[in-house]
């Protein structure tokens, strides 16, 4: 059983929902990423989504775009990301780590090499924003062989047949994009999310995470009621953006604690 599946199982037994913060690797500085990851776990994160910086993040709003730009200013790419994951694993072998990014940096080193290195670094799941299931059959197969979960996005526009197709390919959990738009966009319509998540739940036993519009603790609380996991990205990155080196860890920990409390 994968770490991700195991974590969801344990949380379910305790009747708890997973809380998954997103940060971009290397933002604001590559030396800080690993300690930020530990701080997030210490203050309530069940899993961590680590963004792979990309020059052209088409699905991201301005907040996460800026995070990518800050990371790229320090030339952070996949090789750094794998080093960070390894460094994190020296102290934490329990918390699932999910890499989120775009196809091009993965293809630049080659999908086989990527999967190999992800396994060596001990990554648990991959979200590739611009890899719909039809275009990544080989990649999904390679990941499966290495017991790394392929996490796919579902959207408000995904019709029934599409949801079925994605469920067949997916493992770990399904990531429901709560709104039509980019990351960090307008507030989400909870009723609409509820009905779509309900529809997906009838088709699968996979846990369902919701993200892309969770802007505060109150929204996180509402989303937790109707899903198995809450992903908080742009809000977390915004906190990083508004902090300085001295109060960064303190600020993100505080935000994480607030979210944890709301989700519980």
């Amino acid at each position, binding site marked *: 059983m994968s770490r991700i599946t195991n974590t969801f199982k344990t949380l379910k037994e305790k009747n708890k929902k997973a809380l998954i913060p997103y940060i971009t690797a290397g933002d604001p500085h590559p030396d800080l990423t690993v300690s930020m990851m530990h701080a997030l776990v210490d203050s309530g994160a069940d899993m961590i989504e680590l963004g792979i910086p*990309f020059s052209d993040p088409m699905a991201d709003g301005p907040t996460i775009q800026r995070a990518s730009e800050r990371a*790229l200013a320090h030339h952070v*790419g996949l090789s750094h990301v794998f080093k960070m994951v390894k460094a994190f694993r020296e102290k934490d072998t329990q918390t699932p780590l999910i890499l989120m990014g775009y196809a091009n940096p993965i293809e630049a080193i080659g999908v086989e090499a990527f999967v190999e290195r992800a396994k060596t670094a001990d990554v648990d799941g991959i979200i590739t924003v611009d890899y719909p299931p039809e275009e990544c059959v080989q990649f999904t197969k390679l990941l499966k062989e290495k017991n790394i979960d392929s996490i796919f996005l579902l*959207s408000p526009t995904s019709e029934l047949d599409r949801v079925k197709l994605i469920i067949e390919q997916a493992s770990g959990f399904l990531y429901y994009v709560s709104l039509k*738009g980019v990351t960090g966009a307008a507030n989400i319509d909870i009723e609409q999310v509820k009905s779509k998540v309900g529809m997906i739940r009838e088709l699968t036993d996979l846990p369902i995470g919701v993200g892309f519009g969770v802007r505060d603790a109150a929204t996180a609380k509402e989303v937790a009621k109707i899903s198995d996991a809450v992903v908080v990205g742009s809000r977390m990155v915004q906190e990083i953006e508004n902090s300085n080196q001295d109060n960064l860890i303190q600020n993100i920990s505080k935000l994480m604690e607030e979210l944890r409390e709301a989700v519980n």
Partner: protein
Amino acid sequence: MQPYDMPDEKGHFGQFGGVFVAETLIEALSELRAIYEKYRHDPDFLTELHHDLKHFVGRPSPIYHAKRWSDRVGGAQIYLKREDLNHTGAHKVNNTVGQALLAKRMGKPRIIAETGAGQHGVATATISARLGLECVVYMGSEDVKRQAPNVYRMKLLGATVVPVESGSKTLKDALNEAMRDWVTNISTTFYIIGTVAGPHPYPMMVRDFNSVVGVECKMQMNEMLGRQPDAVVACVGGGSNAMGIFYPYIDLREVRLIGVEAAGHGIETGKHAAPLTANSPIGVLHGNRTYLMQNEEGQIIETHSISAGLDYPGVGPEHAWLKDIKRAEYFAVTDTEALDAFHSLCLTEGIIPALETSHALAYAEKLAKTMKPDQVILVNLSGRGDKDINTVAKISNINL
């Protein structure tokens, strides 16, 4: 030999092309594919399209024998397909007219577009004004500076021009931003992509709408000379004017197809926009797989060209395919060579070409010299250069 029949039904040209987008766009692309399949051979749609191309755009555009310039160059006879004479001044309008008619049939009230040189933006604003559709054009803030006349033109036509400040602030970033808009406003908005890139069905659809250029050329060359050219030459950024003129010639094997990329300061300097000529690696950007200028970590690198319309790190997936199967050849010319050809055509033929087009002209000059006077080169004169006079004046240290 099998007739050329690409892409496959999933939008692949061999390993290139495809649909690499976030999930939210998948449904919209399926819808677009279905609508396009429904109308691409529909007699009423085609009648309306051809009516617009004739009466609004001014088609067919003539082919002109640039005799004085050919004599000056020495060698082959150079003929020019005068897409610069279209309404709005470039080939871009062929595609926007087609896509806007689809938008109308889909009942979408809002049009968005990306633009580099501004020609596609102007062509989109034009057709939106004519059909009474809201129009928003994304343009890199660098390009907004370089192409001020076109920015004002779009505004006159009622479009909103949004300067894009992210990344390199050029065409690729405008495309990113347009995609972000589309994903957000998907139910009301039709995205008119201006080049043969993007996710399927865009590369195919933009090619098809532009292929009126090549279809006309085949008839016109036959009427004028009773034969087809030995070589067809067109500039390639994303590659829409080149695909438009190449496509009907693909099965005529004896006609050389030559795409000309922007070598900027020179391929060897790294400051260029020529992924095919520079043998860039294969990658994924803007919804398709193609040759792509990038660093070892897969980050897209900044490109350079004097012409905003060629300043793009990728290339349409069909060009990548045509290069691999060796049906088309690709070369690059520098900023300086393009400028020389620009001036040369102005002075010998009384035609001010776009800086993009000047790249094709510069290569045609080189090629003509290696050919005989009874041989024929057909250049797609894809756009007029009025929009570029500020850029050229600045280079010549002239204050307008």
